[in-house]
């Protein structure tokens, strides 16, 4: 496949791997966090780890949109889905996230009309095709997906589609990063910055990381060569004593972001004063709600939702995994009580979740492959 295969080229991968060897100090252990779940997925999917020297360790970060949805929000979604006449739409991996009493998929098996969509526009299309039904879109994601939700809501309002509404769970990337950097048990040498988020917000919002916390950031694409290249750029900064934001993903990410997408978000959304993140607790000004101008399309105002905060299951250590404090396999329930088919924690549900990526792709002892 053109423009994809080039970034999965094993020969080039070996070359970058050799360059990485050239910039690491042999006695030093490096910890680099990939912020974004998309990177986590690619790292495991392509075995990027296998091309790194042993003293370079990748730590998985909090940027998995499904993983950070708390149980109470899933319960609220299910409550709306069970309302008579409602068609409840969301992205596929959200269907399997457990609330306190089952998943949206369970609600579907019990009769709720829950449908998977690939885009919020698909949900709007369903609303127009079925004017007698209430169609609700359960919006999730960082700044990557927020603009498409915003544009869909703008279109719904412009076209007067009254039976469409949105339950907004959009979150923003900078507040959790700042919370992470403030945490005392953190020991990281640098960050692989989130590529897709940066296509919208640009690279500039990450300047606080080198400025305030003295850690390099390299915004990276999602192909294995992108990630390896970004790791090299981070390690080179460390070797040269530099500390700045660099953009590896220049083919997509403009340094100042996408101003039209940001304008659409500014029109449709407003900051929530605080929002609960799964495993991370409440983080102030870290999530979006519909702005007052769009209140009529806000599912949380149109339907009554329980809005109850549900504590994470005691056994679940998603929070520690999301913060990179423990590896997925170090969680007490990993792979036994918590598996992709019967997940306790969100990190085991989304393909971008660190636990699911490790369970699905990384779960083998590398030295035990025998002829």
């Amino acid at each position, binding site marked *: *496949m053109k423009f*994809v295969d080039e970034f*999965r*080229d*094993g020969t080039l*991968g*070996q070359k970058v791997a050799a360059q990485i060897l050239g910039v690491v100090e042999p006695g030093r252990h490096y910890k680099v966090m990939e912020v974004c779940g998309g990177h986590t997925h690619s790292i*495991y*999917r*392509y*075995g*990027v*780890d*296998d*091309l790194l020297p042993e003293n370079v360790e990748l730590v998985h970060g909090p940027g998995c949109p499904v993983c950070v949805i708390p149980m109470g929000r899933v319960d609220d979604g299910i409550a709306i889905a069970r309302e008579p006449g409602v068609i409840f739409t969301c992205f*596929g991996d959200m269907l*399997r996230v457990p609330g306190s009493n089952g998943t949206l*998929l*369970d609600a*579907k*098996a*019990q009769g709720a009309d829950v449908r998977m969509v*690939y885009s919020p526009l*698909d949900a709007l299309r369903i609303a127009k095709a079925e004017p007698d039904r209430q169609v609700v879109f359960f919006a999730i994601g960082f700044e990557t997906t927020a603009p498409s939700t915003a544009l869909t809501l703008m279109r719904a309002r412009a076209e007067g589609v009254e039976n469409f509404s949105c339950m907004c769970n959009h979150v923003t990337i900078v507040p959790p990063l700042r919370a992470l950097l403030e945490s005392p048990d953190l020991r990281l040498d640098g960050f692989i910055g989130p590529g897709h988020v940066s296509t919208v917000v640009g690279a500039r919002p990450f300047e606080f990381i080198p400025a305030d916390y003295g850690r390099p950031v390299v915004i990276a694409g999602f192909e*294995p*060569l992108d990630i390896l290249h970004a790791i090299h750029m981070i390690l080179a900064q460390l070797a040269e004593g530099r500390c700045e934001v660099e953009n590896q993903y220049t083919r997509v990410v403009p340094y100042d972001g996408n101003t039209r997408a940001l304008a659409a978000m500014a029109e449709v959304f407003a900051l929530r004063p605080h929002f609960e993140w799964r495993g991370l607790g409440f983080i102030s000004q870290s999530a979006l709600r519909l702005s007052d101008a769009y209140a009529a399309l806000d599912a949380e105002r149109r339907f009554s939702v329980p809005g109850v905060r549900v504590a994470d299951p005691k056994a679940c250590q998603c929070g520690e995994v999301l913060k990179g404090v423990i*590896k997925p*396999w170090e969680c007490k329930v*990993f*792979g*036994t009580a918590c*598996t*992709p*088919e019967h997940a306790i924690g969100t990190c085991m549900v989304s*393909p971008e979740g660190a636990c699911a990526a490790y*369970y*699905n*792709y*990384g*779960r*083998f*002892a*590398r030295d*035990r*492959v*025998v*002829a």
Partner: protein
Amino acid sequence: MTVSSREERILGIIETARSKRPRFKDERITMVHGAGGKATQTLIEGLLAPAFGLEELADAAIVGDGIALTTDSFVVKPLRFPGGSIGELAVNGTVNDLAVAGARPLALSLALILEEGLDSAVLRAEVEAMAEAAAAAGVRIASGDTKVVERGHADGMYVCTTGVGLRDPRAELSPGAVRPGDRVIVSGSIGEHGTAIMLARGDLGLDADIESDTRSLWPAVDAMLGPDVRCIRDATRGGVASVLNEIARAAGVAIVVREGDVPVDPAVAGAAELLGIDPMYVANEGKMVAFVAADAVDETLAALHAVDGCERAAEIGEVKTEPTGMVLVETAFGGRRVMDQLVGDPLPRIC
């Protein structure tokens, strides 16, 4: 304990838990139980097999004196799609279950469940498709049944076929025969049927020239059978990945697949990339996975290449001893990873 030995111990615990016979504990049936992955396996191994005293599960059972018996039902949506239709699938699917058991297909019985209001022209077209597919596969449709259900209780029509075949004397096929050192062959480019169905539904707004690969696999099996062919499976629901996982578990071996050697049509690869689906998990209706002795690979591939629909047959991997029961992939990028059983259902009702 070092980090890596702690990690290895935990991986050991997980594998022990996974190798136990699954128990069926789900409260309700969901679409996932039909996807051909982990949940389907749990349903079959945890509920059906113990109830009927079945031990070795295969596409077709050998009963009596070399008689092979199999059954399959078809609920595909839409009824017609590029490259085929439900009628053609219903014949080829059952013929293929016999073929990969090493049995020459002889006859089918056919059950039709029709929805009130179904357009007769649609039914007639499917009956013709069945007759044509049966003639092409060299099987007789010998008996049948029809039922009609109220509007809304079936999506147009469902089809069930049962097949009888005669085991070929050259066939000594079983997962237990697969041993380390054997090679893995696929009979052609993968993922076409599932992708064609997905695009035919039209709700993805994608357009590509991809046709279902539905066809009888008997000519291909007939061309390759011999003492060095250990086991064959058709890679339907759950795709090639599900077959490999099933065999790795059943034979107690590891399988290593070289991702770069797996034949995938560029249009299929492109659609899968956009949808975030791995073609290894996408259904085929005319492709099989064969395990053959290492020195029989060249001969087998040459035999397959001469058969229609198998021009792109290729060796994609090798059977190893450890880690037992697992399928690993060597990625084209140079890394390694697990290729697990399918969890969840990327695509319901594809066959």
